[in-house]
């Protein structure tokens, strides 16, 4: 495998759209041809060479190419989008649409990414060592075909609307997520190792959401159906299983109705006692406050 390294020279004033930067876009090209590739900013077209130093050279096909991108790429969009094979490493933060529509290969981001990473992803692996923005592994605006396959792993947190219109593949968020997870999903698996806020699986038709942490507010359309043991990254957890979203249409397979599944880790008995104690303490405080408050208001 041959390696080509692109180093950002100056941070662009506006957002730079660099969909050419991927193993597929660079494979088989000479460094000079790479420098001449178009990148877009606003309504203007520039060459890749105006913004990046190019060293090394790519392989003859995407599968034989490793692309390393260096510098502050937080204003560069579409890095690694539509890649089908090979390897790519982004050594910093990146802007929107990282690895969007990728169908194969391995894309690693050492920093954090902005929104729409892995949009419409069909295959391959996307590893984000920092945080992800909103709409991770989602559908393009208006589309009903979100992530179809492959794996996205985020070491940090993810924003809102993770797995919006997801149809397949796996998203693993090792940190926390914001609201709306797996909205409209019709397949795929979303694993959240940290905590979630609310609206898990809203209008979900099919697919699985696994939550190891806590959820602030459950969706009303989910029904508890029992406990089961689930394997996450090689560890086993006892989980409460829910089906939903019961307000949606659900198709049948072999006579049985298929639902979206929401699995939430059952706390250990000691945790249950502790959380019960904490809840009672909060309730006592609240009650006390209600009795004391009117007198204080009157004397004020």
């Amino acid at each position, binding site marked *: 495998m041959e390696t080509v390294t692109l180093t950002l020279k100056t941070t662009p004033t506006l957002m730079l759209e660099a969909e050419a930067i991927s193993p597929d876009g660079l494979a088989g090209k000479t460094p000079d041809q790479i420098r001449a590739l178009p990148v877009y900013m606003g309504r203007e077209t520039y060459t890749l060479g105006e913004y990046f130093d190019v060293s090394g050279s790519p392989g003859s096909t995407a599968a034989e190419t490793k692309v390393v991108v260096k510098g502050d790429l937080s204003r560069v969009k579409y890095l690694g989008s539509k890649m089908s094979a090979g390897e790519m490493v982004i050594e910093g933060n990146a802007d929107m649409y990282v690895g969007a529509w990728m169908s194969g290969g391995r894309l690693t981001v050492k920093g954090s990414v902005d929104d729409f990473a892995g949009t419409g992803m069909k295959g391959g692996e996307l590893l984000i060592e920092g945080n992800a923005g909103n709409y991770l592994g989602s*559908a*393009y*605006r*208006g*589309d009903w075909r979100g992530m179809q396959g492959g794996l996205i792993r985020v070491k940090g947190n993810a924003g809102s609307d993770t797995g919006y219109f997801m149809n397949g593949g796996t998203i693993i968020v090792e940190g926390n997520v914001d609201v709306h997870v797996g909205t409209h999903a019709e397949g795929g698996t979303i694993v959240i190792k940290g905590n979630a806020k609310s609206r898990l699986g809203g209008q979900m038709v099919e697919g699985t959401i696994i939550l190891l942490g806590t959820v602030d507010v459950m969706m009303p359309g989910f029904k508890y159906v029992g406990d089961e043991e689930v394997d996450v990254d090689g560890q086993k957890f006892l989980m409460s299983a829910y089906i939903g979203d019961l307000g949606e249409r659900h198709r049948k397979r072999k006579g049985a109705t298929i639902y979206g599944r929401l699995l939430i880790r059952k706390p250990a008995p000691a945790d249950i006692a502790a959380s019960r104690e904490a809840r009672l303490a909060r309730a006592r405080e609240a009650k006390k406050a209600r009795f004391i408050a009117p007198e204080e208001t009157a004397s004020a």
Partner: protein
Amino acid sequence: MAEILIKNGFVFDPVTGVKGDKKDIAIRDGKIVDSVSSSAKVYDASGKTVMAGAVEIHAHVAGPKVNEGRNYRPEDKLFVNRAAESKGTRTTGGFSIPTTFKTGYSYAKMGYTVVMEAAMPPLYARHVHEEIRDTPIVDEGAFPVFGNNWFVLEYLKNNEVENTAAYISWLLRASKGYAVKIVNPGGTEAWGWGLNCLSVNDPVPYFDITPAQIVKGLIEANEYLGLPHSIHIHANNLGNPGNFSTTLDTFRLAEGYRANNRFGREQTMHHTHVQFHAYGGDSWLNFESKAPEIMDYVNSHPNLTIDTGNVTLDETTTMTADGPFEHHLTELNHLKWANVDVELETAAGIVPYVYSPNVKVCAIQWAIGLELALLARDPMRCFITTDHPNAGPFTRYPRIIKWLMSKASRDERLNTFKHADKVISATNVGGMDREITFYEIAQMTRAGPAKALGLSAMYGGLAPGMDADVVVYDINPETSFSGEEIERAFSAASLVVKTGVPVVEDGRVINNGNKRTLWVDAKVNENAQVMRDVEEKFLKFYSVNLNNYEVQGHHYIPNPFAIEVDATQ
């Protein structure tokens, strides 16, 4: 003024009856002439095919429903936006619902010079005309919808044909419309009650009138006025298995009427996108083609013209004034649905649709569309459309022409469907050997639709005195050619001349032409009752007042072309 001579091409022109002879076409001052002086600009068309500009009789290309499609389907634009390809042209975008600019350029590149917008909601006629204005090159007209209009329902319930005609005359002028369009007569109004009219005898709630009465009354009013086009109908029960009997019932409504007009039009009914109306079976499981039954009737009834509505096997956006149908469709495919009610006039719905070659029903629909054209005995009465964008985008016409002209291409497609065996047994296309000729293509896309629209004096032919809309395709009809070569040639014309101005050369747009908006100015005797009804309805029901309704002035129609009709005697 400018003279052009297109030399030595193989000319196909049903108007002058030329079938592939080598001929020169002379143009002066925007018209076809017998000869030009030696200073004329000469184009060498030797080894190429020459036809008149093509005429689109039914497409949804301008107006609020098209624009809502653009709004709610950003994914339709994904990866297809293109920078302007030459000086003076604009950025283009969109696939099934292209921008207005792409609409104009794409039609022109395929050799189309006239396009009819198939359904204009009169209340939003201003929007329709603004989009028509922004669609370059092609001459356009728009058909206001009448089949669910409260005025029409009330007049026809009492058999008041003269009042209906006076109202049509007023509305054509107010909306700058071209013809009387009918969409799911009565059914769209019934949708306001959550109902539909699935046969020609289903009564419309409240109005207590049947689709049959609406259609017959509008034929009578249309012929009373002597409009250039006949009524243009999308019948009840579109898209349902077994609907061919409703279609035949609708055809029969036109029996006994005679075309009355001074434009050479012979039909009294144009039925559009018949593919969607030619289904047998009683469920999606035994869904089958009834194209032979439909075409038997069409072939033996010269008072009828049709267009096909060919399925192109693409991902597209369905949009129609048939509100209940679009609700039915979104329940079938679970994709996003837009719906609107247009006050006293009509409604509309939009749903994306994927015609997949792996789905049996889609493949059968594909076959039915082709069967209609292949079974047509008179190509002057059967026109090629995709009901753009409902059965597929109009940019696929070259592909449909390929399937019609080449049995090999057609069979290759048919035999590679996922459910080929089931498709072949539910249809007839596999056993059809006919290959449509260049001359028949010229009839189905030029002379035929021009005649049906009452525009045969201007468009669709190459006789001296007609508008100089001339197209040269880079294909030699005297050598053997593959289906792929047909598709390539019809996709990007070598030369397109529009009213005497070269607008496309070598498949590239070079000029924005001299676009006109066609509309029909029908004069009737003063009708105090209708005018009082109009004023009353605007006071009582409309959300706008009359002054904000009419389409007038340079802003909406910078280059109008009014076709005058006098029904005052």
